[in-house]
Every structure is written in C-alpha cells, then in structure tokens.
C-alpha cells in the first residue's frame, strides 16, 4: 500500500469516526480543526508537486499524517473535556448532586473518579507514545468517554432546571425578606433617634 493510500486509510478509519463523535456531540465544528484539515490538505498537495523529489513527498505525507492524528486524538480529548465540564456542574453543586443524579452519592463519586482515572491513564499513555504511536491512547480516551456518558445518562437535566427555578424564587424571596427586615430596623432606629432628641 502506498503512503498516500495509508494516509487516506487513516482518514477514513480513525479520523472520520473521531470527528463524527465530536461534531455529533457538540453540534458544532471546532475552529482549530479547520486549520488542521487545511494544513493536512496542503501537505497532500505537495505530494503531487512534480517539482518535489520522492523523499520530500514522503516527508509531506508524514506531516499530513501528523495533522490527521492530531485531529483524531484531539476529538476524543475535547469530548472528554466537554463531558467533564457538564458532569462538574452537577458534581460541584451539592443540591444538584443530591437531588438531580439518579445514583447514590457514593456511586457517583466512584464513577466520577473512574472517569478521571481513565483519562489520566490515557494521557500518560499518550505522553509516553509521543513520536512513536500517538493514536495508541485513543482507546483509553474512548473508555473514559463511555464512563462519562454513563454518568450523564444518570443526570436529570429537567430536575436540575426545576431546582434552579425553585432556588431562584427562594433566593428572591429571601432577599426581599432581608430588605424588609433592614427597612424595619432602620425605621425603629430612626424613631428611637427622634424620641431621644425630643
């Protein structure tokens, strides 16, 4: 198989599925990826430049491959990051953690630690494989994403929205009570002051 065939196999087999996962999850396209695809295309174009010798053509294919590998790996890392952001809004909020997650707090903590540990292991593997096989860490990130998705499936977003409304109203009422209280105390103090003067 030629280098170019190998490159496009990487595109179809690894890059497109990873891209589908990311774009399907966030529902938008990350700007950075456009640059990566553009750069990859520029290197592929050089591979067909008649003025270049075979060695330089191969070097360009290798660079194009680097860009596609980066897109693949970054896709999984971005999905993990976005899922983590989402879980944290529940995990860091004691009310949401208690009332809006359909699992015990112990299970949630254990799963959340497993989710982070899986990503940490993948990250360690990725750093160890820099320059050797960058995609080696993909499976680790995928595993972490699956764990995160499992946690998200237990998170009740509708209930979290209701909680926000209830607490929002509660906080408005509480601030109104405080204001009335302050006004009352102010009124009493003013009256006492006037009586003292008389």
């Amino acid at each position, binding site marked *: 198989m030629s280098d170019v065939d190998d490159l496009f*196999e990487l595109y*179809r*087999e*690894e*890059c*497109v*599925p*990873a*891209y*589908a*996962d990311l*774009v*399907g*999850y*966030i*529902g*938008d*396209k*990350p*700007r*950075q990826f*456009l640059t990566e*695809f553009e750069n990859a295309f520029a290197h592929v174009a050089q591979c067909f430049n008649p003025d270049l010798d075979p060695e330089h053509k191969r070097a360009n294919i290798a660079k194009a491959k680097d860009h596609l590998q980066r897109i693949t790996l*970054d896709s*999984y*890392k*971005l*999905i*993990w*990051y976005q899922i*983590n*952001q989402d879980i944290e809004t529940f995990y860091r909020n004691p009310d949401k953690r208690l009332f809006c997650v359909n699992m015990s707090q112990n299970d949630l903590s254990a799963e959340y630690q497993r989710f*982070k540990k899986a*990503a*940490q292991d993948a*990250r360690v593997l990725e750093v160890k494989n820099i320059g050797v096989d960058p995609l080696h860490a*993909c*499976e680790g990130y*995928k595993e972490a*994403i*699956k764990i995160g*998705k499992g946690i998200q499936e237990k998170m009740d977003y509708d209930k979290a929205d209701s909680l926000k409304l209830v607490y929002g109203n509660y906080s408005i009422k509480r601030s109104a009570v405080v204001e009335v209280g302050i006004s009352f105390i102010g009124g009493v103090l003013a009256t006492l002051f006037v009586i003292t003067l008389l």
Partner: protein
Amino acid sequence: MVARKTVLFEKEYNTSISDFSTTEEIDSFIEKKLGRKLEIKQIESSVVTNRGSIFPSKEYDIDKMLDSSLGR
C-alpha cells in the same frame, strides 16, 4: 488498525459509521438531524490570542485544558 467504530455518534444518531466516508458527509448528516447549519465554534478557553489577526480571538490548547481538568 482498530475496527472502524464510534463511541457516541452511532448510538446517538442511530446510524452506522460505515455509511460515511468523509467529514463533509458527517457534517451534512448532523445538520439534517439538528435542522440547522453547523457553526464554527471556539472551544472555550481563557487563552486569548491575536495570531496576526486584528481581532483577538479565543484559542484552545486542549492539552492545557485537559491537564487542568485532571488536576495535573
């Protein structure tokens, strides 16, 4: 090569990745499902850069974001 498979996409959209060969096909499919065009999105980050542009734009460093989330 690992078997061609997605983690979320196929389950989420009830489809098979083997029906797609390019990112353009993926974009069109998701746009159809969402009922809107995909937007070019800046992934949130606190890093602001100019990079030769007159408009400062947000740029992400996924490794920095990831490491910070992992507490490294």
